């Protein structure tokens, strides 16, 4: 509980969350708070479970221990119908955009509106065009997802995410793989949407500068723990080795460059597979056993 900031106005609260995949502990008793109307960033090296955290908040994955409450409701104890009612008020921007590939841009944005409301088609048209105008893609309404660039696809997905005027949006790596112009456009867009629509935004990212430029509060995750938290200024000035390694992009530090392995020389000299011929009449017994283990 020591790394929990206690605020009266949190929209999303993560309490003592523990989550594992197989033997690996992804989160080890972490607690986070996401304030209403603010942009909160979750940062950390690749593989620390940032996307997993969003899926847990969205109720797609269940924690081993701990709880996630959104607007005072425990996400993982809701009935399916209630969870769907809650999700109508949550938007999520996936890393890939997750646009439906058999629909054009207009229909993708209109999809949640058509599914969840009985609005007449003329009103849906106006609504969709307003959302597309907000992301600068009103002119691209007839394009299919395969005709869009990565940045455009994310902006369309963003228009779809805000189609039902949600109370919060979760962004999964919104800046990854974007050219500087698209990245700049997305940074501005996230900030302006947050301000104009009064959204609560959760950004998962490892793009330090772009995220720090718009975030109100940052959590840095590593090794299943919250290793740093604070305003962007506080994070920049943090004395934590973990935070400093991440913010300065140092190749080695508390997060090791090398994946855990046995001694290098030992590995080179005693590898049983190092000189294995490409074609053998019969695989060695150890290899066959290993394969069986993989399948078991």
């Amino acid at each position, binding site marked *: 509980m020591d790394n929990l900031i206690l605020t009266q106005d949190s929209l999303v609260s993560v309490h003592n969350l523990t989550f594992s995949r197989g033997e690996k502990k992804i989160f080890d008793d972490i607690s986070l708070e996401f304030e209403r109307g603010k942009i909160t960033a979750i940062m950390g090296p690749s593989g620390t479970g940032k996307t997993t955290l969003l*899926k847990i908040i*969205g109720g*797609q994955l269940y924690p081993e221990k701990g709880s996630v409450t959104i607007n005072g409701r425990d996400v993982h104890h809701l009935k399916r119908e209630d969870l*769907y*009612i809650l*999700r*109508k008020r*949550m*938007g*999520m921007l*996936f*890393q*890939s955009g*997750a*646009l*439906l*590939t058999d629909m054009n841009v207009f229909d993708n944005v209109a*999809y*949640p509106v058509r*599914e*969840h409301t009985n609005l007449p088609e003329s009103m849906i048209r106006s609504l969709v065009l307003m959302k597309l105008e907000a992301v600068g893609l009103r002119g691209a309404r007839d394009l299919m997802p395969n005709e869009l660039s990565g940045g455009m696809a994310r902006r369309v*997905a963003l228009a*779809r995410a805000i189609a039902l005027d949600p109370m919060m949006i979760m962004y999964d790596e919104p800046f990854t793989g974007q050219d500087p112009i698209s990245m700049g456009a997305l940074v501005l867009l996230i900030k302006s949407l947050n301000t104009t629509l009064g959204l609560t935004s959760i950004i998962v990212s490892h793009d330090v500068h772009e995220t720090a430029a718009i975030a109100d509060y940052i959590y840095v995750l590593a090794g299943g723990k919250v290793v740093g938290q604070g305003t962007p200024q506080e994070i920049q000035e943090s004395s934590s080795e973990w935070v400093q390694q991440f913010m300065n992009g140092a190749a080695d530090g508390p997060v090791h460059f090398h994946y855990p392995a046995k001694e290098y020389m030992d590995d080179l000299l005693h590898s049983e597979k190092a000189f294995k011929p490409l074609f053998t009449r019969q695989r060695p017994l150890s290899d066959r*056993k290993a394969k*069986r283990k993989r*399948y*078991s």
Partner: protein
Amino acid sequence: MEFFRYLGASTRTSFTKLGRASFFLISILSGISSVIVRPRLLLKQLHSVGVLSFLIITISGLFVGMVLGLQGFYILSRFGAEETLGVMVAASLVRELGPVVAALLFAGRAGSALTAEIGLMKATEQLSGMEMMAIDPIKRIISPRFLAGFLSMPLLAALFSAVGIIGGQMVGSGLLGVDDGAYWSQMRANLDFQGDIINGVIKSVVFGFVTSWIALFEGYDAIPTAEGVSRATTRTVVNSAFSILGLDFILTALMFGDN
């Protein structure tokens, strides 16, 4: 000892998968009511699963019928019974080859396409995206495809048999000199509606159900990578073929066992 461990682990994995597939089937069936309310979802899938399979079914049915006509004529003419060629061709098609071969072709064309489509939707997070938009992907994506496959299969099998019978007639009467009237009248006189045609339809309904279930489950259960989707697609074709042929034996034994 290692062998028994492997055997035990494989058996457990298979049963676990069967359990997942059963729960998946229950959720598909419970989602069918929402498809009936929105027939447009079904019509679109009927087109891609059923209508687009017309060509492969028609051409294959024609050639299978022609081969049956040819082989049947060679055998029947030895006994001077070539006039009964129509019965032989029609019975073979309606009872067995129509449902079975059409189902195998259906699994290869439509089944593999369904698995790849669902698997790729999973890999590109489209299904997760729908979940997060509070839209149930089972109701909107899976159930319409299942129903389309289930409804298309008997129609495609009937088409296969009908075209095959015409193919047999083209070869038998057109090329080999079997009397055209005898071909059709023998068929009408000796083919039983209940015993042959309805049983054939029942078979194709069962095959349509199983093939659509396997195809959709494999796609939904696929590991969301290029290799995972590729393996799932292969499993769909292989498992569907085994299921169709195995079920055909069981159904044939039950339907025609006392003849």
